[in-house]
């Protein structure tokens, strides 16, 4: 009881450690890396560290802009192209804590293909993130995605696609829905896709991807609405759910509570909080180790 009080809503520190939490959606300064290529990201990682420690996270994966025109900061874009090593600063500072993926620009297919070689084949990055907004964002139903997905599949990379089902319709032309992701994923049955935010409005999101076995849903990015994980495990299976924190703009409370408070087994919680994601990353982690 005393331990429960100290943790105030969290399981014991030991239980959290036993979950071996790998966070698939860490968003330090998600849209603005900073003029030197990483200063705002590093500041937000430092801001997140108390929650990371409290949650006993083992690893967190963030998404790096790599000079493909995915930010609105021209100074950063120039720097990332001329001095790409600045992009690696967060990984170099926290080598045992951070994992990285790159943010692709589906509007620039050739440049994105080059970036895949540089950062996934020859570099430390493990996969890609397709954003739902910002410069260059396209819905994943766009034909440009096919060449990119084929190359990512060749490299064994993981694909995280931002998705929302918004009441009243899309807020931007670049936004994707879970239904659009299901259409894309149907062309590549052997390539896993992560449906970021489970569509936000998860009752529809879960349903839209239920018949797509190569799509997993990611848990962050919306209020801690009760019942989400219970429905996802019931309809998709725990093996198709991966945890994301969305720190620091969201919170440990909002995001971790979705999983730890769900009426599911401890085995399912371990899968969602880390095992499933580790399994997805395994091909890339193995290739980097080799």
């Amino acid at each position, binding site marked *: 009881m005393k331990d429960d*009080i100290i943790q*105030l809503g969290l399981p014991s520190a030991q239980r959290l450690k036993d979950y071996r939490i790998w966070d698939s959606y860490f968003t330090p300064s998600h849209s603005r890396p900073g003029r030197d290529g990483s200063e705002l990201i590093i500041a937000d990682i430092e801001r997140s560290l*108390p929650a990371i420690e409290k949650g006993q996270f083992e690893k967190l994966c963030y998404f790096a802009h790599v000079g493909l025109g995915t930010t609105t900061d021209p100074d950063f874009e120039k720097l990332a192209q001329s001095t790409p090593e600045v992009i690696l600063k967060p990984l170099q500072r926290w080598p045992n804590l951070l994992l990285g993926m790159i943010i692709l620009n589906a509007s620039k297919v050739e440049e994105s293909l080059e970036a895949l070689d540089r950062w996934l084949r020859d570099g430390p990055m493990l996969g890609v993130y397709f954003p739902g907004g910002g410069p260059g964002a396209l819905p994943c139903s766009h034909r440009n995605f096919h060449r990119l997905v084929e190359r990512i599949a060749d490299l064994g990379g993981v694909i995280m696609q931002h998705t929302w089902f918004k*009441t009243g319709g899309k807020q931007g032309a670049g936004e994707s829905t879970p239904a659009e992701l299901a259409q894309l994923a149907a062309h590549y049955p052997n390539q896993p896709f992560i449906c970021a935010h489970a569509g*936000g409005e998860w009752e529809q999101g879960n349903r839209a991807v239920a018949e797509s076995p190569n799509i997993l849903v990611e848990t962050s990015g919306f209020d801690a609405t*009760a019942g989400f994980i219970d429905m996802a495990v019931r309809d998709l299976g725990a093996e198709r759910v991966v945890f994301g924190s969305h720190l*620091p703009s969201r*919170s*440990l409370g*909002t995001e971790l509570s979705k999983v730890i408070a769900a009426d599911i087994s401890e085995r399912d919680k371990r899968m969602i909080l880390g095992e499933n994601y580790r399994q997805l990353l395994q091909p890339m982690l193995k290739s980097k180790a080799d």
Partner: protein
Amino acid sequence: MSSEDDFSRFSRRELLTASVGMASLAMISSARLQAMEDDSSEFPIIDTNVSLFRWPFRRLPLDTTAALQKKLQSLGIVQAWAGSFEGLFHRDLVGVNSRLIEECRQHKMFVPIGSVNPTLPGWEQDLQRCLAEESMLGIRLHPNYHGYTLDSPNFSRILKLATEAGRFVQLAVALEDTRTQPEQLQVPDVDLTPLPTIVKRIPQARVQLLNDRPRGSLINQLRAVPGIYFDTARVDGTDGIPNLVQSVEPGRVLFGTHSPFLIPEAALIRTHESGRFNPSALRSVLAENAERFREGNVT
């Protein structure tokens, strides 16, 4: 130990705890906070924002009162101020509030906060029943679901009457993210623009905003009016709650979870995950501010 015993114990001890203000909000290390928490025997909590009965659009895991009570007590919550989801759409608010009162009688940790809808004929009688006959601590308003704005004369009238009776008003700014609402039943957040002016006109008024996500320039106007209070239910970001506490006068952020719609652990973890509250500041947010607000002993 029963929930009543828990509450009695809390009432005694909370009055003994030190008053806490801005000075107590301090940057401290995780290790130090852990040590200080170890020194404290308990963190009894008041949840100022729960609702009983069924959410209209889906079943929720904790939507029976017994299940909600069990969960809240397991988290150290000893008292919960309860509105009714029935109050959103039902027009028979006498029935709504009667069922709420009866449910709270059977589950002692819940304190009934009645619904009043000033667009209905006879709303003054509903208010009278809540405040005079049933001696409720306050009432809960849903202007967006009931179809009026805060510059409606009846809103000022309710606030004036409640204040004259020494009671508070809870104003639910939102119940659900507008992006996830049913397509055919979209309800925008309450426009709070008129609120500072109205509250300033009614000395001693106490208005708690529920489920607000403070942002934009309006927040500065809300902060400037001492009678306006906040809850924690949808204040997100790893340091969102400490930032809100730091930005307003002491005592104006009250713990609330918006359960069972939201998972109650969410707001609770957010109060301490950044490590920026010392135990004294944490106690203020988790219980003492609510206690003072409830009694009208406010800044």
